[in-house]
């Protein structure tokens, strides 16, 4: 029971992170293509200025939760994905610094450089996150002692000894990039006005179609790479509602966008990401990290879970703390709701 609860609590943290940091990653990618004037750019960046740092906290809080609830998984996955994680850290550093620096430097050349770094780092992060999730879904070559170490690439084929990047994880990486860019476009449509918002809205329909195509492709690929992903669904057929939800939320994005209801369109995109991630989690549950080296080496809930007292105590403070946290987050988003107003956004 505790295992079930904590599995889904960690999943909630991951969904929270992807939904929230997802839009500012998408904004990071898009601002390279979408903005035309310096004012556009400042408006775009001001729309994420007060929130991006808070959004990143979901990653840290999620990582911490994973650490104490499933120490074996944390230890095994973090050391096994050593190289890509370090690259993710460097990208997070570059991204945060370039965004912050931009507000303090007014030399055009440097600003252009920082904008480029910010956009590239945002895009690379989306790619890495997609690949990371795909690595978990595909499985890793776990040794008997529960550890593994993956190179960045081997022969680009999923198999017993794959690399971080193979054709399957690359498909998921591209999907993540496109889906988060779409998410960012909807945020820009929501938070800005005039020509900029119009340009963002115009992107939505083609991107929705692209996301739909890539989603279908990744679904087929997942089933090919790890057929067991469907077991839970056939066992509880009601849960096929998840893929239906994926498609329905994509349709809603397009619908609300055309009706000029940007908030609803954005929320539909949140739902899309939620369904995708929840569906992926359900596909592996109760395994946490499948082994390509034989199912007996899978890291399962039962193997990785912390001691009972740790989890019971954790549930109390976690529930209390996250209630508070959701309170602050809501408060901040309420305070900064509405279109970005550059005059009051400077600091």
């Amino acid at each position, binding site marked *: 029971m505790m295992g079930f609860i904590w599995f889904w609590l960690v999943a909630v943290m991951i969904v929270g992170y992807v939904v929230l940091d997802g839009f500012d990653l998408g904004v990071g990618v898009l601002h390279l293509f979408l903005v035309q004037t310096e004012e556009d750019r400042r408006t775009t960046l001001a729309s994420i200025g007060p929130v991006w740092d808070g959004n990143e906290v979901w990653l840290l809080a999620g990582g911490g939760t994973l650490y104490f609830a499933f120490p074996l998984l944390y230890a095994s996955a973090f050391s096994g994905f050593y190289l890509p994680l370090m690259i993710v850290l460097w990208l997070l550093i570059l991204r945060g610094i370039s965004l912050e620096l931009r507000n303090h430097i007014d030399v055009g050349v440097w600003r252009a450089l920082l904008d480029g770094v910010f956009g590239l780092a945002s895009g690379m992060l989306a790619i890495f996150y997609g690949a990371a999730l795909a690595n978990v879904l595909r499985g890793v070559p776990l040794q008997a002692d529960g*550890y593994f170490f993956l190179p960045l690439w081997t022969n680009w084929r999923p198999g017993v000894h794959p690399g971080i990047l193979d054709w399957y994880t690359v498909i998921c990486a591209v999907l993540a990039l496109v889906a988060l860019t779409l998410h960012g476009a909807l945020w820009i449509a929501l938070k800005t006005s005039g020509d900029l918002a119009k340009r963002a809205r115009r992107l939505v329909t083609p991107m929705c179609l692209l996301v739909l195509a890539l989603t279908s492709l990744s679904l087929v690929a997942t089933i090919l790479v790890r057929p067991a992903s469907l077991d839970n669904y056939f066992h509880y057929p009601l849960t096929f509602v998840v893929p239906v939800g994926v498609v329905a939320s994509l349709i809603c994005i397009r619908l609300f966008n055309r009706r000029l209801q940007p908030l609803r369109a954005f929320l539909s995109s949140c739902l899309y990401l939620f369904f995708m991630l929840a569906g992926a989690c359900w596909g592996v549950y109760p395994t946490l990290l499948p082994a390509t080296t034989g199912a007996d080496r899978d890291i399962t809930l039962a193997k990785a879970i912390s001691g009972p007292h740790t989890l019971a105590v954790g549930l109390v403070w976690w529930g209390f703390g996250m209630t508070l946290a959701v309170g602050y987050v809501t408060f901040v988003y309420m305070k900064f709701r509405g279109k970005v107003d550059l005059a009051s956004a400077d*600091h």
Partner: protein
Amino acid sequence: MTAELIHRLHFAFTITFHYLFPQLTMGLALLIVVLKSVALKTGDEKWDRAARFWGRIFGINFVFGVVTGIPMEFEFGTNWARFSRLSGGVIGQPLAMEGVFSFFLESAFLGLFLYGEKRLSKLMHWFSAFMVFAGSWLSGFFIIVTDAWMQHPVAYDRLPNGQFEVLSFWQLLLNPWGLLQYVHNMTGAVITGSFVMAAVGAFYLLEGRREEYARIFLKVGVIAGCLSSILIIFPTGDLAGKYVARNQPAAIAAMEGLFHTQDGADMVVMGQPNEETGLIDNPLVVNNALSFLIYGTTKAQVKGLDQIPHDQWPTALPLLFYAYHIMVGLGTWFLLLMAVAAFLLWRGALQRSRPVLWALLLSFPLPYIANTAGWMTAELGRQPWLIYGLMRTSEGYSNTVSASNGLFTLIGFMGLYALLGLLFTVLIYREISCGPEPTKKEVRA
């Protein structure tokens, strides 16, 4: 180079660089609340502008702290997997609490404090500053709790699979080692904040401009600096030292360079510990002082390294000795300088005492060195243990991550952090040159 050494250097380098930022964050957060409180009480716009100026510096510093802090949480898993696997149920707990309880709080209210002044009432803006302070100090608490459990494990049990499990949540949080280190460490952060603020004040006065702001900075910086420089020695440093002496005899003997057990032990003020001969080269000694400092009497016996098996000696003994002596030496300098500055401030003569202003200006890097040396003392003193008495450092690193892969990313971090250090210096220098006066843009708005 062995994998163990690389993983130790990896963590040591990234954490040392990281902690340059939070110490200022935590110290300044308190001082900004002071500035905002005076502004709220007197309605004096100057104090508000002073708070806004330090808020900008705080903001830059905070971002550098955040981005260099994210790797720390990852490195427990990436570089110290075997340690994390066994201890995650215990120390994962305070680390997750830091995220849940303080990072959300801090980031939410920092956004409001930096971007929301025009959307908030004066009281609410003060409250945002206060919550940023509360969040950052809470964050420090959880980190110290984590470290305290590694230094002085309490309230744990071992499951059949070898994992550690928390027995009492409150005992874990209220570990006496943690409480003592917390007050000592936070006082150290206030010293950094005060010295930086006083140094900027001294810089403006020596330059002969922005004197009204310089006076504010000096006043707040010197008063806070004087108080914290007293508190860092007595009672916090004194108590922490005595607690270490009782619980980690090997650490205190190595810190003090005490190779041989002695009744009425001497304190070495300066010298170079020689591990081969078991003597201090070029010693400068105060007789019986060490016994007095630890036990309150000049006669008491202090255990030397000779009573400790050699395989339990701190592995980097001379470095530990120097780190400790640098911390104590600089602490003494802080007290002297701040006492003189506070006296002059009280007499109204500080602004005209150029030598003291110069000393204040040039001393701003020293608290960074002292805080770093203090952490090195604590962590090198814990060696060869990762969890004191329970798990050796050699049993904790990720053995699937080879020395070569570790070195690859260590070099990556070194390059990136060199760039970050450079950018940070340029940014802060710009802010200090621009000063607290409203810019043209602000006047127009």
